[in-house]
């Protein structure tokens, strides 16, 4: 398939997806769980892809994602709360010290930049570490950030451990899809560039990559900063989705959720991360909800075992099953593409033909 045809197909698919979303919004009530899943799924897809850029493509095992999301979310919230409602939000801190607002897109990007700056500073010492040690250090960083943001002395900026609210959020599901889509497209372009190739070379063999003239420290830092930048943006989007934020929300459990999405989707597959993020959110928020219903009757039969929290047990089992049966995750390192699907069907068709040919010989 020619590249022109491919881009045409992809553009068509994206347009179709957006039209479908638009139509769904007209038809279904806005309180439908479907939209919750789609919104949160799109945001998580972006974090998962940003984490995959680091863990799957550069081979740096980092667990700082929640920390960078927190930075992005707080930056977004702090700079977009309308001046008139600052007094009520920062009620214990005399309205805070920041008395201006930024437009939403600017604030989102600012969130990314703040996360990237922190990533650069943290990266200087931390990126000398490898594998598990790097994971521990970044996890520690995320925890420290969370604690610092709850500190009273920073209250005039961060509102201490109180909620930040009243900042602009989105209603339509189109917004997170477009925002996350643009960011993911940028990450994909990066991965397919010479930089992406250098990242993969570092993942495969550091010494050989260095011998080829790839500056290890520089490229690792680059991957770390870019990944954090997009984590920051997704943090901003998450703040918009949640409508209120609090530092205590960004626990390490959040990083583990994202890590789980990356692993289930396939380490080193962008589309895998996207697919599994929607599946993950749908399972945890929607499809398994009925398991929490203690009084579920099918006909006259009272389904046993069900009680609040049982959903989580089943979910854990599902995840274990997925990991057992798909060792490489759903997608492995492959990507989901128009070309791949058309090849798949072509193979199926030609396979059938061969079978026919075989039977006629008998």
């Amino acid at each position, binding site marked *: 398939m020619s590249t022109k045809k491919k881009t045409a197909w992809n553009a068509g698919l994206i347009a179709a997806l957006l039209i479908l979303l638009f139509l769904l919004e007209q038809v279904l009530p806005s309180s439908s769980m479907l939209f919750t899943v789609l919104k949160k799924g799109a945001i998580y897809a972006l974090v998962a892809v940003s984490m995959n850029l680091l863990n799957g493509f550069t081979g740096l095992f980092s667990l700082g994602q929640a920390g960078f999301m927190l930075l992005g979310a707080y930056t977004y919230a702090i700079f977009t709360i309308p001046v008139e409602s600052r007094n009520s939000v920062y009620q214990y801190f005399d309205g805070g010290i920041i008395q201006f607002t930024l437009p939403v897109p600017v604030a989102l990007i600012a969130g990314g930049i703040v996360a990237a700056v922190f990533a650069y500073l943290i990266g200087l010492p931390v990126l000398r570490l490898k594998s598990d040690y790097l994971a521990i250090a970044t996890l520690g960083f995320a925890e420290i950030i969370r604690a610092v943001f709850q500190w009273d002395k920073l209250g005039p900026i961060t509102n201490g451990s109180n909620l930040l609210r009243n900042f602009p959020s989105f209603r339509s599901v189109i917004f997170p899809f477009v925002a996350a889509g643009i960011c993911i497209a940028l990450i994909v372009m990066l991965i397919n560039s*010479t930089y992406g*190739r*250098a990242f*993969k*070379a570092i*993942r*495969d*063999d550091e*010494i*050989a*990559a*260095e*011998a*080829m*003239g*790839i*500056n290890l420290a520089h490229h690792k830092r680059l991957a770390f900063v870019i990944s954090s930048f997009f984590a920051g943006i997704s943090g901003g989007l998450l703040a918009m989705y949640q409508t209120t934020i609090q530092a205590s929300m960004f626990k390490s459990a959040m990083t583990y959720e994202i890590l789980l999405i990356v692993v289930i989707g396939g380490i*080193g597959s962008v589309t895998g991360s996207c697919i599994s993020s929607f599946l993950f959110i749908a399972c945890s928020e929607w499809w398994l909800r009925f398991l929490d219903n203690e009084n579920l009757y099918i006909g006259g039969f009272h389904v046993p075992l069900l009680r609040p929290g049982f959903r989580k047990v089943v979910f854990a089992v599902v995840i274990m099953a997925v990991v057992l049966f798909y060792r490489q995750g759903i997608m492995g*390192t492959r990507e989901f593409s128009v070309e791949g699907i058309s090849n798949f069907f072509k193979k199926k068709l030609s396979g059938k033909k061969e079978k026919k040919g075989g039977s006629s010989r008998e």
Partner: protein
Amino acid sequence: MSNILEVKDLHVSYGGIKAVKEISFEVPKGEVVTLIGANGAGKSSTLRSIVGLVKPESGSIQFEGAELAGLSTDQIVSKGITLVPEGRRVFPDLTVLENLKIGAYMRKDSLEEDLKWVHDLFPRLKERSWQLAGTLSGGEQQMLAIGRALMSKPELIMMDEPSLGLAPIIVQGVFDIIREINKQGVTILLVEQNANMALKAADKGYVMETGRITLTGTGMELLENEEVKAAYLGKAKDK
């Protein structure tokens, strides 16, 4: 003929252990030079310090008159030296083509011509362009490692045991390629344990033992040398 590389009084140590003790040698432009020696003689350390993967403790390494000691690897590679690391070390999860492109990472100009050059040298790599490098055979991986190094258009290519773990017939092929590359104007510094093959291919040879150079000569002289024969070619010393 001028020397492309001159190493003087090079010391390399890892912690307290001295791996290379005050060695000096030169590589004339356009020739094949080999360093032979047993395991632990310091051959690989020498190569690694030339390309900047290991910082030399003291001594000077001059490449076309410019000092290399203290420069970072990417700076050294961009000057025109490439290392084919020991044990091939191709990038297993990248395709053959991507591996080759990584070799040209320091270059910003067009790669078409050099890709064609490498593909002419190794037609097998062209056939397998889309295959993951990890699925190639050992011999093919060695070809890829050499091809990848050539993609940076080096003036000096250093090979660390290219015959390691390969069948004799493949080793013969690798050495044929080495001579072919040399004919096309690339200077080669070869580190080998396979002394017989290496000395036959080389214009000049150095024998290393426990961090020092103990013998020097042309390839033929060393092949005839009794001590070399006894130590590396498996023939008893005449008494």
